[in-house]
């Protein structure tokens, strides 16, 4: 499955996209614990101090949402368009 990062989080991650092979469906929250920043911290740890939003298959979701082995997941800061 594909994980995308946008804006400030893309810069923190140092990349816009990673591939993760899931053996079974999981939750957004669990996925956040699996993803590590370049400094070794997990995305889950980061999200305790800064607001990180998530989308699964291009729909906004919370940490309890399910992620399938073929989902497109994205993490990003609060939006600032317009």
């Amino acid at each position: 499955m594909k994980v995308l990062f946008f804006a400030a989080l893309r810069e923190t991650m140092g990349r816009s996209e990673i591939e993760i092979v899931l053996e079974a469906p999981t939750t957004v929250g669990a996925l956040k614990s699996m993803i590590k920043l370049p400094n070794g911290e997990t995305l889950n740890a980061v999200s305790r101090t800064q607001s990180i939003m998530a989308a699964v298959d291009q729909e906004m979701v919370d940490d309890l949402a399910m992620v399938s082995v073929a989902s497109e997941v994205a993490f990003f800061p609060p939006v600032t368009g317009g």
Partner: protein
Amino acid sequence: MYRSILIQVEDFSLDAALAELKMQSGLAGGLCFFTGAVRNSNLDEAVGGLYLEHYPGMTERQLDQIVDEAARRWTLHGAMVVHRIGHLKPGDNIVLVAVSASHRGEAFDACEMIMDYLKTNATFWKKESIPDGYRWVEARSSDEAKATAWDA
């Protein structure tokens, strides 16, 4: 109801949007347009320019849902959203929302609701260049409050 949703690097024309709404959505009596432009300062710092990025695919879908919601609340003839991405200078246009309706009150309300929802519910992000370098613009709680006020 006519609708058009565009995310593009290029600038837009209000006159072209007016002509498009008139041609595509019948002879509506009232047309409301909102344009957001890049300011030259923010949080007391000079802003030299803006970089706008979005989540391709998801953003278009969200804008479509926002227009759906406006069309559910008011009787609209047409609605257009054009949002620019990429590098912009102070004074440049960022976003255009254009709505046509039989009654002017509906055109004003729908246009403002689409803008308020767009601000908080569409995956765009702004990075501004300031004298010290760059900073990502932070979401404002006042925008959140304006968007949720439509549900009151």
